[in-house]
């Protein structure tokens, strides 16, 4: 109010801050105090544990060339997408994939824009490119999980179920005929 500077660079003061700042460790808060005590808050989950809501299925291969080759035989553990799941998969595709691969899966998203955008490499055309058309669903899953060429790993943004949903969605779009006669669901794959 008193300052003449138009840009407000300081957050200002708080009246009686007892209940303003969290005593507990909140999101975004520094965890240095924990680290000093030797508690590592960013440890990866213990092997074999499954996150709540995730699927009881683990991708068996590592991020190496052998894994990439072997991924071709991996099958989608999820049952075929229902209508509601398909809508959700489309949303996931548009949020996480569409920015490069394009809304129409033509590899021409806003980041590439036919070379106009900032991204230097042309993202894979998921519809027209025979490599993408013939890519096994397991290989697609491998690429989303670990990243491939210019593409980074999206495993931190999409969990296992979501990744398979996106793969299923892309495969259905590439081959609409097969989508109608989807194979019978693997009954061993159950949602946790």
């Amino acid at each position: 109010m008193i300052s003449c500077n138009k840009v407000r660079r300081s957050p200002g003061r708080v009246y009686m801050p007892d209940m303003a700042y969290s005593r507990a460790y909140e999101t975004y808060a520094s965890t240095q105090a924990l680290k000093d005590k030797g508690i590592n808050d960013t440890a990866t989950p213990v092997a074999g544990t499954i996150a709540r809501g995730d699927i009881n299925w683990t991708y068996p291969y590592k991020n190496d060339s052998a894994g990439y080759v072997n991924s071709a035989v991996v099958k989608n553990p999820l049952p075929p997408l229902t209508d509601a799941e398909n809508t959700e998969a489309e949303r996931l595709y548009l949020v996480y994939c569409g920015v490069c691969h394009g809304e129409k899966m033509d590899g021409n998203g806003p980041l590439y824009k036919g070379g106009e955008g900032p991204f230097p490499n042309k993202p894979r055309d998921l519809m027209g490119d025979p490599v993408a058309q013939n890519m096994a669903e397991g290989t697609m899953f491998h690429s989303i999980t670990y990243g491939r060429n210019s593409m980074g790993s999206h495993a931190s943004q999409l969990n296992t179920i979501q990744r398979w949903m996106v793969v299923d969605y892309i495969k259905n779009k590439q081959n609409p005929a097969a989508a109608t006669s989807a194979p019978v669901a693997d009954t061993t794959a159950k949602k946790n």
Partner: protein
Amino acid sequence: MSKCAACHNPLKDGTGPALKDLEQRHKWADHNELLKWINNPAVYMKDDPYTQGLKAKYNNLMMTGFADVTLKDVDDMVAYINDAAKEKPKTAVTEEKPATSSSLIFGIISLILAIIALILMRVNSSLKKLSDEAEGISRPDPVPFYKNKIYIAILALALFILAGYFLSKAAIGLGRQKDYQPEQPIYYSHKVHAGINQVNCLYCHGGAWESKSATIPSVNVCMNCHKGIQTYEKGPKLYTEEGVEVNGTAEIMKLYEYAGFDPKNAAAWDPSKAKPIEWVKIHNLPDHVYFSHAQHTRAGKVQCQSCHGEITAMDEVKQVAELSMGWCVNCHRQTKVDFNYDSTKGNKFYSIYEKFHNDIKNHKMDSVTVKDIGGLECQKCHY
């Protein structure tokens, strides 16, 4: 009007584009085409690249179709928009100016009047003194004005009111951070990322859909694109709020330092060696308030921009909303809840409000607000 105005403004881009000069764009001069689009956007969009582009531009939000709109409605609407586009800017200017200058004039006039009144009072008292002397009546000397109790009382009252006004204003402002715009460790422009390059908000802030916190992306999410995008060349020039020009490529290099990434030897990059970037948090709620992003974005279908402002136009992000309780409560009073539910869309949860559904059917109420389903209960947010 009630239908369009939720997303469109005649002059400004909102959830949807500004409707000004609508007829100059695309095929909209032909109102039949416009009618086809409004009646069923999904079908129209299928073989129309222009509207597909629009959808991409506006956060991939599809315009809602209004099948009951007729050609006559379209004619009326376009006429209304043209009127609004012509008149609005003029009236805004002519109305605003006198408002500011008139209060100034009133202030000056009352100040002059006060001075005149003071002078007249002095004149009056000295004239009285003169006439008293002429008539030979001796009265006690008049009390000087700084000892006059009435003057002192008026001054004290004025001081009390002024000080009280400014004190309470400052006290209300304590703990509020509207317009807070801190400097970040890396000059990250939301305008370039979310605006020009149309990266979806959720690509980086996925937590806004899934959890309480919107979450700041970890370095690997930045690197998903910036492994490839190593220079800033194609966008507009960047400036800080103070007007200092920013070198975009140098800012990307700062990111590489955190990530431990060498652009000349990209294959050797080990993401596990990355250091977190200590971004400065802008929107701070006190610990005694509970707020969940997921509840608002997913169940409430609130757009990010409703609270965070035109984020796609901000180079440096600032807090647009007040984040005060009054601000929260106002929105909860006004926002309508979408009670329509079928298997493809809507929220099944709301089907438990039988009374409201019946009231809507019986035309006792036309819409349900967040307030009606408990949005003003204290313990919804404070517990």
